[in-house]
C-alpha cells in the first residue's frame, strides 16, 4: 500500500493506482474528458490536471496517467490548477464548440468567453474511439495518421475498413460527435445555457441532486447565493 497526500488528506491506495483514481476514491472530483473506465489512460485532453510536489517546486501533471507515489503531495483544486484547467477548456472550446461535453465542462468551470481564433473541428484527437476500438471491441479498425497539425483520425487509406464491424462503439464514446444544446445564440462559441438561463429549479424549491431531471446541469451549484 502507498500513502499519498491529496488536498491535505492522507490516502492509502494500492500500488499501480493513478492519482485520479486515488482522488476519486476519497471523494475529490477531478473533471476528465479523455478518460474512461475500462480504457487505458491516455492523457490527451489535460482537463484532469493536478498540481504535485511541495512549494515552491510544484508541477502540473495529468492525474489520469500519473501513478500514485509514496509521500506524494497532490492538490486537485489549487488556484494554479483551476486557472490552467480553465485555459485548457477554453482552448478545447476554440477547436470544437459544438461538443456538448466541452460546453458542459465550460459552464461548470465558469468559462464565459473564448478568446482564441474560433475553429469548428469535428475531432479533438482525444483518442477515446481509437482505444474503444482496439481495447474493448478488439477490432483495431481506426487510428491516428499523420503528424502535427495534419494529425487526423480515420481508417487506413480513408476507405471502409475490413476490420470494422460497425459496432458503433467509437460514436458512442466520442465527445465531439454529440450536438450541443441549441441555446438562443447559435453562433456563440460559449453556449452556457445552463449557466446563464435560470432553470426552474432555481426559482422554486431546490431539487435533490439525484432527482434533478436537468443532470448534469450545474446551474444550482453555481448560482449566486
Amino acid at each position, binding site marked *: 500500500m502507498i500513502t499519498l497526500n491529496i488536498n491535505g488528506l492522507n490516502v492509502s491506495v494500492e500500488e499501480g493506482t493513478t492519482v485520479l483514481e486515488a482522488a476519486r476514491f476519497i471523494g475529490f472530483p477531478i473533471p476528465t474528458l479523455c478518460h474512461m473506465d475500462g480504457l487505458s489512460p491516455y492523457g490527451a485532453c489535460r482537463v484532469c490536471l493536478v498540481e504535485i510536489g511541495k512549494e515552491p517546486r510544484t508541477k502540473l501533471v495529468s492525474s489520469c496517467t500519473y501513478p500514485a507515489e509514496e509521500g506524494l503531495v497532490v492538490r486537485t483544486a489549487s488556484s494554479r490548477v483551476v486557472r490552467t484547467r480553465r485555459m485548457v477548456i477554453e482552448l478545447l472550446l476554440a477547436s470544437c464548440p459544438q461538443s456538448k461535453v466541452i460546453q458542459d465542462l465550460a459552464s461548470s468551470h465558469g468559462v464565459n468567453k473564448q478568446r482564441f481564433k474560433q475553429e469548428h473541428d469535428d475531432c479533438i484527437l482525444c483518442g477515446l474511439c481509437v482505444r474503444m476500438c482496439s481495447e474493448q471491441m478488439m477490432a483495431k*479498425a481506426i487510428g491516428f495518421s*499523420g503528424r502535427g497539425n495534419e494529425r487526423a483520425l480515420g481508417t*487506413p*487509406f480513408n476507405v471502409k*475498413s475490413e476490420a470494422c464491424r460497425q459496432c458503433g462503439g467509437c460514436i458512442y464514446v466520442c465527445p465531439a460527435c454529440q450536438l450541443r444544446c441549441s441555446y438562443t445564440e447559435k453562433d456563440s462559441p460559449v453556449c452556457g445555457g445552463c449557466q446563464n438561463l435560470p432553470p426552474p429549479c432555481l426559482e422554486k424549491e431546490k431539487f435533490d441532486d439525484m432527482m434533478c431531471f436537468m443532470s448534469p446541469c450545474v446551474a444550482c451549484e453555481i448560482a449566486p447565493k
Partner: protein
Amino acid sequence: MADLGKTTVHEREPVDPELIRDILAKHDGEQGGLIAILEDIQTEYGFLPEDALRTVAESMGRPLIDIYGVARFYHCFSLKPRGKHVISACLGTACHVRGAPAIVEELERQLKIRVDETTQDKEFTLKTVNCLGACALGPVAVVDGRTFSKLRRSKVKPLLEQAAAGNDGVEIGKDVRIFPVDVSCPRCNHSLMDDSFFIEGRPSIRVTVSFNHKHGWLRLASLYGRYNVYSEYEVPQSSVVEMFCPHCHTELTSSWQCPTCGAPMVQMIVRGGGVVRICSRRGCCGSRSHMLDLI
C-alpha cells in the same frame, strides 16, 4: 474524418506479393523492423503502394492501421507515386526570410504543379521541408541528393534542366556533382592512382580483384559520380568481388554494407581528407560511391 473529402483515389499500381514476402523474409524476426521493411518497399516502388501495405499487415499479423499510421507519420514515406526526381525546397526560417516562398512559387509555376504533387510525365515531385540545415546557403533546395544553394528565380530553370539531365552528360569541372578524387590504400597509404591508364582523361584507380578463383586488375574511374570500370577479366553483372591493394595485398574492406544491395563496401582514403566507399557488387546502382567527411 476531416480528411475524408480531400482523399484522392489514385490508380492502383500492380504489386507483386512475392516481392513483398521476400522483403518481409529478409527482415524476419527483427524487433521493430517495420520501418526497415517499409523503406525497402519504398526503394522498390518509389512509394508505398496500398496493396503492399495490406500484404505487410497480413503477413506480420498486425492491424493495417498500425502500418498505415507509421507510413503516414514519417515524412520519408510517400503513399502517392513520386516522380523520377524529388525536389525538396527548404521553407525553414532562414530560407524563408531569404525569399524561399518566391522560389517555391517559381518551381510551382515552371513545373505546373502544386507542392506535394507530381508532374504528369512523372518526372518531378515537388516537396517542401522545414530545414535542411544549410541555412547559410539559403534559399536551398535538394534535388536527388544534390544541394542547390543561394537560389533565385532565375536559377530555377537551370536547376530543373540539370536535374532532368541527371548525372550523365554533365561537363567535368563545370558541374559540382562530378569531381576528381585521388585515393590511397587505407592500410599502407600507397596511392592507388595509375598514371599509365586514363579513364575519361583522368588517371584511373587500380586495384586487384578476385572472384571465381580469378585474380586480375580492375581500373575504376577516379571521378566521383562516374562508374566506368575496366578489368582484366570480365566481371559478371551483380557478382560481388573482393578488392585488394596492389601494393600491400591487403583486402580493401570495411564493416559497412551497401545501403542498396547489402554487399560489403570497399573503403579507400581520399587524398586531402575523407573516405570513399564503393559497393563491391558489379552494376549495383552503377557502383555508387559514398563520399564521407570530405574536407
